[in-house]
C-alpha cells in the first residue's frame, strides 16, 4: 500500500463517516429529548432514499435531482411527525422502553409499505448532476460526491449546533434533554416540542438516505443495516452529544476503511484477512469504548432516571395464588397434545421455548432494571453448546444441563462489564457482546459450521416424538421458571429490586448493588441458555441467527408486549407474539404490515403491556 492509497482510503473513511454522522445526529436528538429508543430510524432512512429516487425521476433533470434531496428529507420529516402524533404521543407516559415496541411495529409497517409502493426490485438512482465524476487526488480517482459529503457533514454539525445554541426552540430542546418534566412544569408545550424534535430527527434520517442516491440502490434491507450503525455511532459518541457523534462517525468510518485497506496480512505464517473483521469491527469499537468510557467519547453521566412514578408498578412477590395459577396453566398446557394436532404441539413447543427466553430477559429488565439489547447472546451460547455437545455424541440430558452452565459463564463475563454502565449504554454493551459472539459463530467454520451452522442435532430417542419433546420442554422450562421466580422471592430478589429502585439507599442498607446486579446476569443467562439448548434440539439444526439481533429484538418485543412489570407478562407476550406471527404469516402476503399494525394497536390499547393492562383494568373495577 502506497502513501497515496492510504491517503485516499482516509478520504473514503471520512465519506462513510459523513453518512454515519447524518444517521446518528437525528437518532441522538430524538433520544435526548423524548427518550424514545427509535428502532424505526433506519426505516426512515430507507424511505428517504426511495422517496428521493422517485422524486428525482419524476422531476427529472439536474434540478430534479437537487430538489429531490430536501424534498425527500421534508417528506420523511412529515412522516416522522405523523407517526409521533398518532402513536408515540399516546405512550410517552408508559414505562421506560415501551415506546421501543411502538417503533418496532413501525419498522414492520414501513417495510411492507415500501414493498407495496416501490416493488421488490432494487432501484438505483441517478448520479449527481455536476458531481457525477471523480476528482484526482494523489494520482488516484475519488468520487466528487464523496468530497461533497465530507464537506456537508461538518456544515450540518455547525448548523445543528447553532440551532440548538442560538434559537429559543434550541434552548427548549436542550432544557428538555436535561429535564423534560421541569420544562413541562415551566409551561412549555411538551407535545409540540416532542413532535418538532421527532420531525427534525426523522428529516435528518431521510436526508441521510436521500444523500445515498448516487452511492447505492434503494433496497428493502436498508432499514436494518442502517439502524444498528446509527445506534453504534450514537453510543460510541455519547448520547445527546452531536460532537461526540461526529467523532464516533469518523472513528468508525476510518477504522472500517483501514480494515479493507489492510486486506490480507501475513501474521506468523497464516494470513489474517482484515476485511473479514468488518463484520463486527464497529461492535468491537463500541465494546472497547464503553469499557473504557462508560458514557461514550463525549457523553456525560446521565441525570437520575426520569421515571414517572405513577407507572412504576411493583412486580408482586409471587404468592400462593400466583403459584396455583401458574401450576394450573402449566397443567392445561400439558394437556395440549391430547387435544390438538401435531403442528399445534410444534407451535406450542416454540412458544414454550420463547416464553422461557422472554422470562429470562424479563428477570433482568423488570426486577433487574437493566435492559440488555443483546440477550440472544446467552440463548445462542446455550444453543451452540448443546449443538456441539450433541455432535460430540453427548446424551441429550447431559447437554441440556451443560448448556445453561456455558451460558451462565458467558453471563458472568458479560455481566461483569455491563453492570458498570446503565441505561442505553448497558443495553448497547450487551448488544456489542452479542454481536461479537455472533460473529465468532459466523466465522469459525471448523467448529460452528460458519454461516451455514450445524445440522443433525437430534433429541434422545425417548424424546423424539413431538409430544414427548413438548412435555420435556414444559418440565425443563417450568422448572427454570419456578427457580427464577423463587429467586425473586428470596432476599437476593429483594436486593435486586432495591438496587433498581434506589441504588444509593440500597448501598446504605449494606447491599452491594453492583454485585447483586452482576449476579443476576448468570441466573438469567442460564435460563436463556436452556431455552437455546431446547431450541436447538427442537429444530434439529442451528445457525448464527439463533444469536442474531433479530432474536434479541424479538425477546424485547415479547417482554414489552406482555408487560414489563408483571411476572406472567413475558409468557403471555411470547405466546401472543409467536402465535400472532404464525397466524398472520399464513393468511396474507403483507404479513409484516398487518403484524406491525396489530402491534401498534396493542401498544396504544395497552400501554402497560397486555397482562399489565388487563390487571390494571381488573383492579380499577374492583
Amino acid at each position, binding site marked *: 500500500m502506497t502513501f497515496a492509497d492510504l491517503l485516499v482510503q482516509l478520504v473514503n473513511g471520512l465519506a462513510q463517516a459523513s453518512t454515519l454522522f447524518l444517521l446518528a445526529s437525528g437518532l441522538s436528538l430524538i433520544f435526548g429529548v423524548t427518550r424514545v429508543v427509535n428502532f424505526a430510524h433506519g426505516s426512515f432512512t430507507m424511505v428517504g432514499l426511495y422517496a428521493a429516487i422517485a422524486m428525482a425521476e419524476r422531476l427529472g433533470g439536474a434540478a430534479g435531482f437537487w430538489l429531490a434531496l430536501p424534498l425527500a428529507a421534508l417528506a420523511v420529516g412529515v412522516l416522522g411527525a405523523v407517526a409521533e402524533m398518532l402513536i408515540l404521543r399516546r405512550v410517552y407516559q408508559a414505562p421506560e422502553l415501551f415506546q421501543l415496541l411502538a417503533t418496532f411495529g413501525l419498522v414492520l409497517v414501513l417495510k411492507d409499505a415500501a414493498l407495496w409502493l416501490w416493488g421488490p426490485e432494487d432501484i438505483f438512482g441517478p448520479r449527481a448532476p455536476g458531481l457525477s465524476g471523480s476528482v484526482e487526488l494523489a494520482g488516484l480517482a475519488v468520487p466528487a460526491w464523496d468530497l461533497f459529503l465530507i464537506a456537508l457533514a461538518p456544515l450540518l454539525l455547525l448548523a445543528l449546533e447553532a440551532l440548538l445554541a442560538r434559537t429559543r426552540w434550541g434552548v427548549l430542546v436542550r432544557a428538555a434533554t436535561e429535564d423534560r418534566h421541569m420544562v413541562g412544569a415551566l409551561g412549555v408545550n411538551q407535545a409540540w416540542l416532542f413532535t418538532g424534535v421527532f420531525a427534525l430527527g426523522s428529516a435528518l434520517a431521510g436526508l441521510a438516505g436521500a444523500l445515498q442516491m448516487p452511492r*447505492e440502490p434503494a433496497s428493502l434491507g436498508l432499514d436494518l443495516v442502517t439502524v444498528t450503525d446509527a445506534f453504534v455511532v450514537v453510543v460510541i459518541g455519547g448520547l445527546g452529544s452531536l460532537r461526540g457523534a461526529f467523532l464516533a462517525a469518523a472513528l468508525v468510518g476510518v477504522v472500517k476503511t483501514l480494515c479493507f485497506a489492510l486486506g490480507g496480512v501475513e501474521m506468523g505464517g497464516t494470513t489474517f484477512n482484515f476485511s473479514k473483521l468488518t463484520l463486527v469491527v464497529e461492535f468491537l469499537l463500541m465494546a472497547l469504548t464503553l469499557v473504557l468510557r462508560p458514557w461514550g467519547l463525549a457523553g456525560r453521566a446521565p441525570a437520575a432516571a426520569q421515571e414517572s412514578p405513577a407507572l412504576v408498578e411493583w412486580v408482586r412477590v409471587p404468592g400462593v395464588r400466583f403459584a396455583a395459577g401458574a401450576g394450573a396453566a402449566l397443567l392445561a398446557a400439558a394437556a395440549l397434545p391430547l387435544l390438538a394436532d401435531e403442528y399445534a404441539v410444534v407451535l406450542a413447543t416454540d412458544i414454550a421455548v420463547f416464553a422461557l427466553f422472554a422470562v429470562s430477559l424479563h428477570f433482568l429488565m423488570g426486577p433487574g432494571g437493566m435492559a440488555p439489547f443483546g440477550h440472544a447472546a446467552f440463548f445462542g451460547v446455550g444453543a451452540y453448546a448443546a449443538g456441539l455437545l450433541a455432535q460430540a455424541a453427548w446424551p441429550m440430558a447431559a447437554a441440556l444441563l451443560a448448556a445453561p452452565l456455558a451460558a451462565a459463564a458467558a453471563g458472568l463475563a458479560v455481566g461483569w462489564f455491563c453492570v458498570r454502565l446503565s441505561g442505553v449504554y448497558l443495553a448497547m454493551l450487551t448488544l456489542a457482546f452479542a454481536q461479537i459472539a455472533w460473529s465468532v459463530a459466523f466465522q469459525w467454520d471448523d467448529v460452528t459450521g460458519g454461516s451455514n451452522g450445524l445440522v443433525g442435532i437430534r433429541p434422545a430417542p425417548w424424546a423424539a416424538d413431538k409430544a414427548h419433546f413438548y412435555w420435556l420442554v414444559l418440565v425443563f422450562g417450568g422448572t427454570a421458571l419456578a427457580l427464577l421466580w423463587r429467586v425473586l422471592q428470596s432476599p437476593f430478589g429483594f436486593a435486586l429490586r432495591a438496587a433498581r429502585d434506589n441504588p444509593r439507599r440500597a448501598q446504605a442498607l449494606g447491599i452491594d448493588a453492583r454485585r447483586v446486579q452482576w449476579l443476576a446476569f448468570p441466573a438469567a443467562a442460564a435460563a436463556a441458555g436452556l431455552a437455546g439448548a431446547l431450541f436447538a434440539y427442537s429444530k434439529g439444526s442451528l445457525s448464527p441467527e439463533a444469536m442474531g439481533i433479530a432474536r434479541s429484538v424479538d425477546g424485547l418485543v415479547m417482554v414489552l408486549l406482555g408487560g414489563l412489570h408483571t411476572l406472567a407478562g413475558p409468557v403471555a407476550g411470547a405466546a401472543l407474539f409467536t402465535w400472532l406471527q404464525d397466524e398472520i404469516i399464513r393468511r396474507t402476503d403483507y404479513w409484516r404490515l398487518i403484524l406491525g399494525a396489530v402491534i401498534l394497536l396493542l401498544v396504544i390499547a395497552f400501554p402497560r403491556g397486555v397482562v399489565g393492562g388487563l390487571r390494571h383494568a381488573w383492579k380499577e373495577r374492583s
Partner: protein
Amino acid sequence: MKRILAMLALALAASATQAQTIRIGEMNSYKTFPAFLEPYRKGWQLALEEVNAAGGVNGRKLEVISRDDNGNPGDAVRVAEELASREQAVLLMGGFASNVGLALSDFAKQRRIVFLAAEPLTDKLVWEGGNRYTFRLRASTYMQTAMLIPEAARARKKRWALVYPNYEYGQAAAAAFKKLLKARQPDVEFVAEQAPPLGKLDAGAVVQALAAAKPDAVFSALFGPDLAKFVREGNTRGLFRGREVVNLLAGEPEYLDPLKDETPEGWIVTGYPWADIASPEHRRFLDAYRARWNDYPRLGSVVGYTSLMSVAAALKKADDTDTEKLVAAFKGLPVGTPFGRITYRALDHQSTMGAFVGRLAKKDGRGVMVDWVYREGIAYLPPDDEVRRLRPAD
C-alpha cells in the same frame, strides 16, 4: 333439516375433491429476498396452472400450500412441520438462503419427506451434507463458478483480485475459483482478497483496496445492492478500465436490471439473457409467462416454474405420493424445462440444469448479456468418484 343435509353434502363433496388433489408444501423467504422470490412465485404459479389445465398428474389436480419462512432456519423448520403434518403435503419445495436450505434438508431427512431445494446454492446441500430425501434444482456455487473458468483462463491474466460477500456462498465461490483456475493456469497469482459483509459493502474502500493490489483481473461474487454499489464506485474510480472482470450471477435480471446505464460492459458473468433465447421450449415459456403476468421473466421465474414442473414430473413417474416411491422417481428423473432437458442425478440428487455464460453489454440504457452460451450443468460437476467421496452414504 334439509339445509343441514345440503351443507353436509357440500362439506363431503369439498373433502372429496380435497382428497383428490395432491398437496405440495412450498416455503420461501419471500419477504427477505423479494427481488428474486416475487418472480419465483409467479413462475411456480404459472406452472401450477399449466399442469392443472392439462388435467393434473395421473388424474389428480395439484395444490400448492405456500408459506413465508421469515428468512430464518428456525421458523422455516416450523413452517415445514406445519406443511407436512397439518397440511398433509406429500413433499416440500422451496428455499433461498443456504442456511435455511440446509435446515430444511435436515428436516426432510429427519421427517422422511422429499424436499426439492429450488434455489439454495451451497455445495453442501448435495455433497457433504447430502441426504436421501433432498434434491436440488439450481446449479450449485461450484458448478456456476466452474462454468466461468474457461473464459477466465482464456483471458490469460496473471494477477487476480477477489471480492465476495463474507458468508458460505462467497467463500465457497472464491475457493472454487482459486482451485479451478490454478489447475488450468498454474502461474496465476491471487493478489488481493476482500470479503465485505453481505449487504454492507463499503464500496469506496473495497474498490480502492482492490485497485491498490494492481491486479490484471477481478473475480467477484457480489450480487444485489452490493453489486450495484461496487459497479458504480468501480466505474467512477476506474477500477475496471483495462481489466478483465468475472462476476458470478451478475447477468441475472434480478441483479442486472437495476444497474441500467451503469452496466459495466465486457464483464464475464453467469445469468439469464431471457430476451434472446430462441429455443422453442424457452419461446413457449416466455410467451406463456408474458401472457399470464404481463411482465418479463427473471431467473427466479424459471427456477419457480421448473421446480414445480420437476415436482409434477416426479409425481407422475412415481404414480404414488409415498415418500420412498418419490425418492425413487426423482433419482434419474428427466424434466423438460425452459432451458431444455435436465436430469436429477441418482448419484448426488443434483439436477443438471445449467446456466448462461456471456458478457455484459449496454443496449438502450439497459444491461444485457451478449455472446452468451448455455453451459449444461453435467459438464461442470466433479468426477463421480470425487462426488462419492464427498457425499455420505444414505
